[in-house]
């Protein structure tokens, strides 16, 4: 009380110091205990997460091993005859593994370029105010439950593909290919005319070559577009349908995480690049993208994992036929994925018997786990290496 009234400065400070000292002896002990216990709690929680992951691995592996013991590896990985309910059952999962691969690759082909371009646009091209509105809208895609996507894919998108799949594919081809081909024509004609010495000749040659390649590109555009227009999609529940829907589901992850990575590059690097006379395009391609590449890679891996692990959409809209499409890149054929098989076959009957049919699903789960684990490890590796290169080590 007296100290705070500030009547005698000397006494107050002396008393204050000594009292702090006296209290702190006890307090320090308390503080030490609370600090230790706080650390221990945090450690426990953190390790709990790791332990959960380990436990999942352990339990899935434990139930997967009996399958391989019962049936061996050969049929599972080399045959595509999936007849788990027959007598004798056949557990060829090749087509199913391939189906998972197919829709994952398909969705990555769509989502990765689109996601990266969108994130560049958000972070470096669009004005700040627009970005404030656009980013939450893209992130909204992540908030839609997957069963809603699946329902949309099955009830709306599949019939749409069946009825007017050809024209839709043609428009998609035009929209995607036209700007790309235009860019290609410009670059190619630039490169071809670069060695020419005379400036005047260069210009005419440039135009000539450009027109030539432009014509080729137009023919290509028209021809492929026509070809696509004539396509008739027999069944709308196919790999293409699922790939497109999955890519939309992976998009918010990719955009959001890679946009954060691009933002994290910071103003200094960008301004340094501008100060050296680089244009905005050069700054983005040569400075910002390399600096953010590890973060973008992480975004891509996360997005792909989202597509690989998605169950409900593929279960509803992939058609679930366990065969390898013919030819193997035919995205208009229906496929079956690991996740959908686990969801579909984990039915009522089999946990009773502990049969191969039950354990085969865990074998599939184990494959999924291993794939995502390995790809996470790889991405971690690349990120670390990238960081080293960037920091000049």
């Amino acid at each position, binding site marked *: 009380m007296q100290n705070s009234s500030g009547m005698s400065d000397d006494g107050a400070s002396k008393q204050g110091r000594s009292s702090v000292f006296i209290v702190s002896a006890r307090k320090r002990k308390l503080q030490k205990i609370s600090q230790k216990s706080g650390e221990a709690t945090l450690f426990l929680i953190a390790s709990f997460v790791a332990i959960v992951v380990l436990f999942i691995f352990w339990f899935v592996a434990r139930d997967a091993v009996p399958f391989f013991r019962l049936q061996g590896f050969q049929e599972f990985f080399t045959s595509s005859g999936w007849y788990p309910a027959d007598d004798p059952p056949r557990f060829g999962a090749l087509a199913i593994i391939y189906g998972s691969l197919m829709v994952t690759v398909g969705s990555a082909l769509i989502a990765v370029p689109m996601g990266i371009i969108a994130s560049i646009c958000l972070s470096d091209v669009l004005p700040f105010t627009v970005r404030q509105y656009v980013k939450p809208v893209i992130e909204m895609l992540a908030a839609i439950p997957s069963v809603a996507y699946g329902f949309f894919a*099955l009830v709306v998108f599949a019939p749409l593909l069946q009825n007017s799949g050809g024209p839709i594919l043609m428009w998609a081809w035009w929209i995607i290919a036209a700007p790309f081909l235009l860019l290609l024509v410009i670059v190619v004609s630039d490169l071809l005319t670069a060695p020419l010495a005379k400036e005047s000749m260069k210009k005419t040659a440039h135009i000539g070559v450009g027109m030539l390649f432009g014509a080729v590109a137009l023919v290509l555009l028209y021809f492929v577009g026509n070809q696509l227009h004539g396509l008739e999609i027999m069944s709308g529940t196919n790999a293409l349908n699922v790939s497109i829907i999955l890519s939309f589901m992976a998009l918010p992850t990719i955009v959001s995480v890679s946009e954060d990575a691009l933002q994290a590059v910071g103003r200094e690097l960008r301004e340094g690049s501008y100060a050296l006379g680089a244009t905005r395009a050069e700054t983005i391609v040569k400075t910002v993208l390399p600096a953010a590449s590890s973060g973008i890679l992480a975004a891509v891996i996360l997005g792909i994992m989202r597509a690989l692990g998605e169950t409900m959409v593929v279960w509803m809209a992939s058609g679930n036929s366990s065969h390898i499409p013919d030819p193997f890149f035919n995205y208009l054929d229906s496929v079956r994925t690991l996740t959908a098989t686990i969801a579909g076959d984990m*039915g009522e009957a089999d946990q009773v018997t502990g049969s191969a049919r039950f354990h085969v699903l865990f074998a599939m789960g184990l494959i999924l786990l291993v794939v995502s684990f390995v790809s996470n490890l790889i991405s971690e590796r690349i990120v670390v290496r990238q960081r080293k290169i960037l920091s000049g080590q």
Partner: protein
Amino acid sequence: MKMFRKIMFGAAVMSLMAAGDASAAGNKLVLDGSTTVGPIAKAFASYFKKTTGVDVTVSESGSGNGAKSLINKTCDIANMSRSMKENEIAAAKSKGVNPVEHVIALDGLAVIVHPGNRVNNLSRKQIRDIYSGRVTNWSAVGGPNAPIVVIQRESNSGTQDSFKELVMGKELPISRRAETQASNGAVKSRVASTPTAIGFIGHGFVDGSVKALDVDGVEATVQTVKSGKYPISRPLFMYTNGQPTGTVKQFIDLPKSVDGKKIISEVGFVNKY
């Protein structure tokens, strides 16, 4: 769908636990057996619980296991989608169990196509050829020149089992190209939206959005299923140990009641009575 499966899974696990120390007495009923009869038994179970307060647990371990459970006296009622075999009855007799058969409902499978499909009738052999992948174009069975989109059910579906048994026979596998859908409703919606598709669903699920084909020239109606004329149909059974009494009798008699009949057609089967 997912939720439903989870619930089913949970129910099955719980009923498993219960089946271990099942008793034929008290205010508790234990049912075990066919996955085809399962939906009826489960719907009955919740209705029975509501009206009488008796707990009914239903496991779906297959008809064969249902018979075994009845023989080992671990269940009160065995659900079966086929009648008991000679050797099962003999085994039951030797253990002092007297299995009594009750037909609770009829299972008729409608083979459905898009309403715009001009095919109206297929023989069982034609359906078999389509599903085994031998016939892949509608023109081979009197339809337009278009590839057939074959739709089947998941391998753990009772409807799928019935179809395989009644149409495909034991040996012939269904083509790998066949699409798989998770439920009667999903098959129906796929067929309704796909002009070249063929599928099969429980007779009770047919509505105006799809066209049910005549099979071997017989239209799929409640009458033809009941009379046994419609070829893709079979009776569904519940077996009891001796003539049922008490709560077991109450339960077995449900299909004869008005509410019971409603439940049976709600889950997609045809009433016997």
